[in-house]
């Protein structure tokens, strides 16, 4: 059995068998295979390999579904699963802004407290506090114990608004008090400032790939 001289065609033969090519590519490749003895032989071999695959047991879907952990809905998921007309963009924005205000208050209080003590450098506890307020749907590390996952780079993002607003000086708002200390006007000003902050995380999911460093084959 010889190899077809067209390497690209040979590469695509498994895709042809699995129906993963576009209509155009399928037609082009099928025409080639019909006129090429080497490709016909290789296609036959690929079909035999598939046919010779060991028998796999039937899987009980219901049993697996009942063993799944309970979902932890996040606002983004509720929005994505809702009908298209029921847009929740203002709500999502409100949630981010509320979270950001909470972040500001926590960060501001910590900064103020640190400044008062004038002893400790900025501790690791600060970003931790801001992460929990910005990322309500925290992942469950135990569930991915053996899976290396990318670190959540939210601490830097979360602290950014505090720095920006704190340095703007345009509002003159104190960051050491609680929400209840702010008047409606002050709250509006703060929200407006937050709208201009670019450091807020997007509500869109970011790509995290599961890295696997095992290059050894199975078996």
């Amino acid at each position: 059995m010889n190899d077809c001289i067209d390497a690209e065609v040979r590469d695509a033969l498994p895709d042809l068998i699995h129906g993963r090519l576009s209509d155009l590519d399928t037609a082009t490749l099928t025409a080639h295979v019909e006129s090429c003895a080497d490709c016909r032989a290789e296609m036959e071999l690929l079909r035999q390999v598939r046919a010779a695959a060991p028998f796999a047991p039937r899987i009980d879907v219901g049993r697996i579904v009942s063993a799944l952990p309970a979902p932890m809905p996040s606002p983004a998921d509720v929005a994505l699963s809702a009908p298209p007309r029921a847009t929740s963009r203002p709500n999502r924005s409100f949630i981010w802004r509320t979270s950001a205000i909470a972040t500001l208050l926590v960060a501001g209080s910590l900064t103020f407290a640190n400044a008062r003590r004038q002893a400790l450098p900025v501790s690791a506890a600060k970003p931790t506090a801001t992460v929990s307020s910005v990322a309500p749907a925290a992942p469950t590390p135990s569930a991915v114990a053996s899976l290396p996952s990318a670190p959540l780079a939210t601490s830097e993002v979360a602290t950014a608004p505090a720095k920006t607003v704190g340095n703007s000086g345009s509002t003159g708002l104190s960051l050491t008090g609680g929400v209840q200390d702010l008047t409606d006007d002050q709250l509006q000003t703060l929200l407006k400032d937050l709208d201009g902050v670019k450091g807020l995380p997007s509500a869109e999911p970011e790509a995290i790939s599961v890295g696997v460093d095992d290059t050894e084959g199975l078996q």
Partner: protein
Amino acid sequence: MTLETRGGDESDQRLIARWRAGDSRAASLLVSRHADALARFAVSSGERDEVEELVQDTFVRAFGSLDAFRGESSLRTWLFTIERRLMLDRRRSERRQKAMVSIEPSDAVTEFDALDGLLAEEAEARVKKAVTSLSPTQHEVFTLRVEQGFSYKEIAEVVGTTEGAARVHYHNAMRAVKEFLNE
């Protein structure tokens, strides 16, 4: 050649969102969509016992850590990555427990020798032997490409290598299979 994206009537991403919003039927659709392929991959990789448990563990792990899945790779690729890791863990603990040698391809060939008589097609038995005689890495890449229809990019993600390396492994495997059959 451009590959068509996989997917059924409703995308995996949307089903995941529905499940997280409390729709358990979405979970059933996701599991039934991917369970058989995971079982085939497990068996092709040499798993003989408790394949359903392995598939179940894969889904439990996946659904328990969906926060780590952001949709850059397909859910299918991600599930295969998790299942593969679970199989490697299984084998490591088996080796530790029994302090036995790992399953070598030659062992598996012997296993198939006994099955040869039962196979209706002599050609199919020979093909099976040819595939089983591949090196572990070649076997894994070849299986994912031919039996599962994965692209080189998807194989690279599952196995933890590069697209180029996956392509080389596939073509080396194909050459080895042909040589075996030509003998």
